């Protein structure tokens, strides 16, 4: 009797420990995982005081520079970029109407796209432009093939006037927010 009791206890314990089970799992769901982070970064910033613009003269380009810019055409970026927005912001406190132009150039120096921004003389507040890329916007190929940027600043005003603002300047800001598909 006693032996039967022990045996029963042993069997019960063994069953408790061994009779584990699990609900069916579908590990193929992992293939459906979507990872799409939004990455933001400042791109290009340029500022100039009014004196520099005056010294360059009237109706002239007071700044022009081509810079290598391989951030977009890095293979990983080009392959995983889904869509994005480049935001441009200009604050002009000088007494002149100005134009800033951004050209997207490929490796051979050919122009892929141009963005042109005209701003009135002070007071013109903060001017913001948002340029979308991807579905509903410009082609992502522009970004993927961009190897350098040409930035040009042109003075439509005179070469002598001075704004009443303290430290009058043109400030050109830009930033990107891109959506990537990592998986």
């Amino acid at each position, binding site marked *: 009797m006693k032996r039967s009791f022990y045996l029963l206890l042993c069997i019960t314990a063994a069953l408790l420990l061994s009779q584990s089970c699990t609900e069916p799992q579908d590990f193929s*769901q992992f293939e459906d995982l979507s990872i799409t982070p939004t990455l933001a970064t*400042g791109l290009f*910033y340029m*500022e*100039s005081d009014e004196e*520099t613009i005056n010294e360059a003269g009237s109706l002239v380009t007071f700044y022009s520079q081509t*810079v290598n810019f391989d951030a977009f055409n890095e293979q990983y970026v080009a392959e995983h970029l889904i869509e994005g927005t480049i935001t441009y912001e200009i604050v002009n406190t000088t007494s002149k109407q100005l134009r800033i132009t951004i050209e997207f150039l490929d490796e051979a120096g050919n122009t892929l796209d141009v963005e042109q921004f005209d701003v009135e003389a002070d007071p013109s507040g903060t001017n913001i432009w948002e340029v979308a890329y991807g579905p509903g916007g410009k082609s992502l190929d522009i970004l993927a093939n961009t190897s350098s940027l040409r930035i040009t600043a042109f003075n439509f005003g005179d070469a002598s006037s001075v704004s009443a603002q303290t430290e009058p300047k043109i400030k050109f*800001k830009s930033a990107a927010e891109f959506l990537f598909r*990592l998986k």
Partner: protein
Amino acid sequence: MRGRFYFLYLFLFGSSVLCAQNKELLYDFYEIPQSLMINPGVKTSEKWHVGIPVISGLSVQGATSGVTVNDLFANDGIDFTTKVQERVLDAMTRKDDFSTTSQIEGITVGFRGKNRPDDYYSFGMYGETDIIVYWPRDLALLAFEGNGGSNIGRSFDLGDLNLRGEMINVFHFGINRKMTESLTVGARAKLYSSIFQFQSIKNSGSFRTTVGQDNIYVTSIAADMQLQTAGVKGFYDIVEEDTGTTKKDVTSLFTNRVLLGGNLGLGFDAGFSYQLTPQTTITGSILDVGFIYNSKDVWNYNLNGSAATEGISVYLPEDIDNLNNDLWQELIDDIDAALPHGENQQSYISFRPVKAYGSIRYDFGEAGGNPFNNCGCGVNEQGGGGNRDYYPNSVGGQLFMMKRPRGVQAALTGFYQKRFGRVLALKTTYTIDKYSLTNMGLGLNLQAGPVNFYILGDNLLGYSNIADSHYASLQFGINIISWNDN
């Protein structure tokens, strides 16, 4: 892709079915010789014991304090990305972890001193693997959501990266001494032979994108991060070379490391059992107070510094004559220089995860003579081992604490133990810790003549759907025990 999938599967499944190092069922279960390994000062009754090599003590434990396999992979028709978002990214914190521990005893032998029957000596060798990975919450959010959109202004804590793991072989020798009828103390010296070790436990820093001072955004990073590894690169190089002798080379290196050919360390355990009254006993132990000096096959990676960028910046008139068109590369180079990073082979010391147990036990029931008579147990000897009252029932509480990279991890256990003579002893436990509030365990020790078999299982309720379990452990083993001269 398939490889990554299987890695995730093994990681999550392994974590969920296997737990932390708490062995609440084995602790103070003195009918089982392996209880000496978690309290060198446990009451011992045997004259000698020998473990069946390799199968005298096997334990696998695993835990996840956050998501379970079932949470993610149940066939519930919910979009997988939604499940990851809601059950992992939104729910898990930096305190959540995945951990797994396994032990396999190679050799274990114990014997009572011929000239000093108060002493019970034990020695042996066991292998242990212990890995803990804290959920790197902010880094995961950065990967899944990015630094843009609603995360502008958010500071991502780089210190969320915290992980530690090792595989070691331990050679040990312990002495258990019955000081008085009431007090038994013990200590165990350990020699650690490391197979591999890695840790990244002292990271700090942040990554943040905010409104810039000049440009629209400024992105800043301050990092003090380090990954230390010892013994990993040797295996990695063999696998990477992928020669025809890969398997043989891995086995050879593994064997060499097991047998003291790798990094070595020292440590000790100590413990006691004290009988407050004939029916009340308190015990305590501290385990793995030790370290390993990692000087061979070391490969570390550091990232230390701070940088901030608003993109390419041009200030006129200062930069009017700067016709350099490599401003982008200069920016990259500047950031690179501000964040020194690289490899090194500096030796380091890794500390073993210290563990401590404490318990109070109340014995009750119809008292009788000790069934383990003729044990020749020293102080007991004069009474033939039977002078101590034997009670068939015990009830009590245990406290377990363990040093983890992010502080002490504790568990509280209540238990009931029933003994059916020498043949059978059962122990049931209820444990609460960070992994589970419903952890009920059952342990069985069976003595068939000199053959001792034990099996201990935790969190039995979780076995109904093991994929949904936060915690599980299983230990079993076979020993040969003698209480007399035969």
